[in-house]
């Protein structure tokens, strides 16, 4: 009895279905299809898709490059040297902006630690230049601390005259060698730009 009711319901449903069937349009004769036009259409779709993909790729690449350039700028800003007058450890006015950029990046990247090394030109005694390099590194550290960088994130070392960047015994070379360098020692893998 129950089985019969089920079959009836199924028959009713099938009847309802056949009633709503639309008029079927005559199918186009296969012989009249222009296969070249279809290929052209498909080709243009593929071309449009490829174009869109290429543009997306280029956009991604552009974004990637931009991000990379931004990171490189951050890294370069962090690595930018500052320079000193002969036998001086005072931060020059033109170097304050260089240090201010570092302070901002350090504020945006609290995991970053930095090692500041002081250097001297070859004049002055070898031993005195070690002390002078240490004073220069400490001057840079003090400036950054004044811009809010925690002192514990900064180490200082001195190379004295032991690691010149410029050879030569003239003021041009000496001026380049009187410097402080900045090296990220931790947390520098993915620098965030300051707001």
């Amino acid at each position, binding site marked *: 009895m129950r089985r019969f009711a089920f079959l009836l319901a199924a028959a009713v449903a099938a009847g309802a279905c056949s009633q709503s069937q639309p008029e079927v349009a005559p199918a186009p004769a296969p012989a009249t299809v222009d296969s070249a036009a279809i290929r052209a259409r498909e080709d243009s779709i593929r071309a449009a898709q490829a174009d869109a993909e290429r543009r997306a790729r280029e956009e991604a690449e552009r974004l990637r490059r931009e991000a990379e350039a931004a990171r490189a700028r951050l890294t370069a800003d962090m690595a930018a040297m500052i320079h000193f007058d002969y*036998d001086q*450890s005072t931060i020059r006015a033109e170097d304050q902006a260089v240090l201010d950029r570092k302070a901002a990046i350090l504020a945006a990247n609290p995991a970053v630690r930095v*090692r500041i*090394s002081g250097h001297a030109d070859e*004049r*002055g*005694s*070898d*031993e*005195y230049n*070690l*002390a*002078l390099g*240490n*004073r220069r*590194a*400490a*001057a840079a*550290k*003090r400036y950054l601390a004044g811009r809010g960088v925690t002192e514990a994130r900064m180490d*200082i*070392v*001195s*190379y004295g005259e*032991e690691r010149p960047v410029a050879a030569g015994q003239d003021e041009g070379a000496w001026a380049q060698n009187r410097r402080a360098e900045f090296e990220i020692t931790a947390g520098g893998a993915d620098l965030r730009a300051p707001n």
Partner: protein
Amino acid sequence: MTRRLLAFLLLLPLPLAAQDRPVDEGIRIGISYNPGVRPTLLVLPQAGLDSARAILARDLDYSDRFEVVSVPTGSSPAGPAVNYRQYRVYGAQYGVDVVRGAAPGSARVRLHDLAQGKVLNEQEAALPDPSAAGFRMAVHRLSDEVVRWVTGTPGYAASRLAFVGSDGRLWRVDADGAGLTAVTAAGERILSPVWAPDGRRIAYTRFREGTGVVLVHDLLTGARAAVPGTATGLAFAAAFSPDGRTVAFARADEDGGTDLHSADVAANCCVRRLTVGRFADNLSPTFAPDGRRLAFVSTRAGPPQIYAMSADGTDQELLAPFNFGVDGPSNGPEWSPDGASVAFHRDIDRAPQIFLLDVAARRNRQLTSAGRNEDPTWAPDGRHLAFVSDRSGRRQMWIVDVETGRVRQLHTPAAVRLPAWSRRLVAGTP
């Protein structure tokens, strides 16, 4: 003052124009006896022991106490007995020779009074074979003894200089330029060597990536130990106390200052801070020979100048006078073995020159003027100084006799820096 200066000039054994000029290489042959200046000393010919005789003749010349004349070998087949008559023609006061000693493997050095025809002094000492390692030093010790017989003060031939080569390694060389030997391995950068008074140890800074540890290197065993208080950070510019127990050194602080400390290297303890610089640096210490005072460099008045204090850090004072704003920076002090002077370098027209401070009179005397001259270090005789000069075109060690101004170059294959002279090396020193 003027009269005193005039008297001083008259007393100078050589004309001023002769100062600070190199002499000819090797031994001067000839008779150049100047009465009242330096006694002429003949190095007498002897069969055999030619290499010992050559070393002796050069040592005596380098002592700058004599006009040394080497009588050509072979002109007299002399035995133990000296034919004094044949040397009278030289008009020399002294003669010296080396003969074989009574004991096998020994030599006897004799000082003769040629005018009176007698032996004034003689000494026998073990003399290794000329090919053995200790041969040259054994002859140097005999040379130094000859100088002592004549002047009362030994010569400095039995000593060595340590220095840093252009390769960053520590090297040592005998005072006559022989026996150049590397002390440290390649790849390490060494700074500021200084000899322990025993001549067996050298302290120096091993510099690495902006940090420096002061090591005491035992030349006999090759063992190295860090001086207490120098294992971290940047420590440099070590100095040994005359008893060899204490090492003073400079240490760069996190706040930017550099200050002097000392440590007991015999007991391996007891680091002590000697200066509190605050806004000034204090560095480059050197002990007076009595061990009670230290000279050092300080920037307390601005540019670096030479100061002194007690070994415990008290009683600090300016040592080498300077005209503020006029005289250049002064660095590299080293107290003389007799305590009477402190050698240092001071910039004149931005080029360092060697100066000598008379400690009692507090007067400076400039010794050099040609080229850049820096980092003076005293010979054990307290009369000669080695320093680094670029007058020959590259940094080499030069030795000046501060009494006469006579200078000579100590030839080394490469450029050098930071020389340190040992005390006299007794027999058995490695």
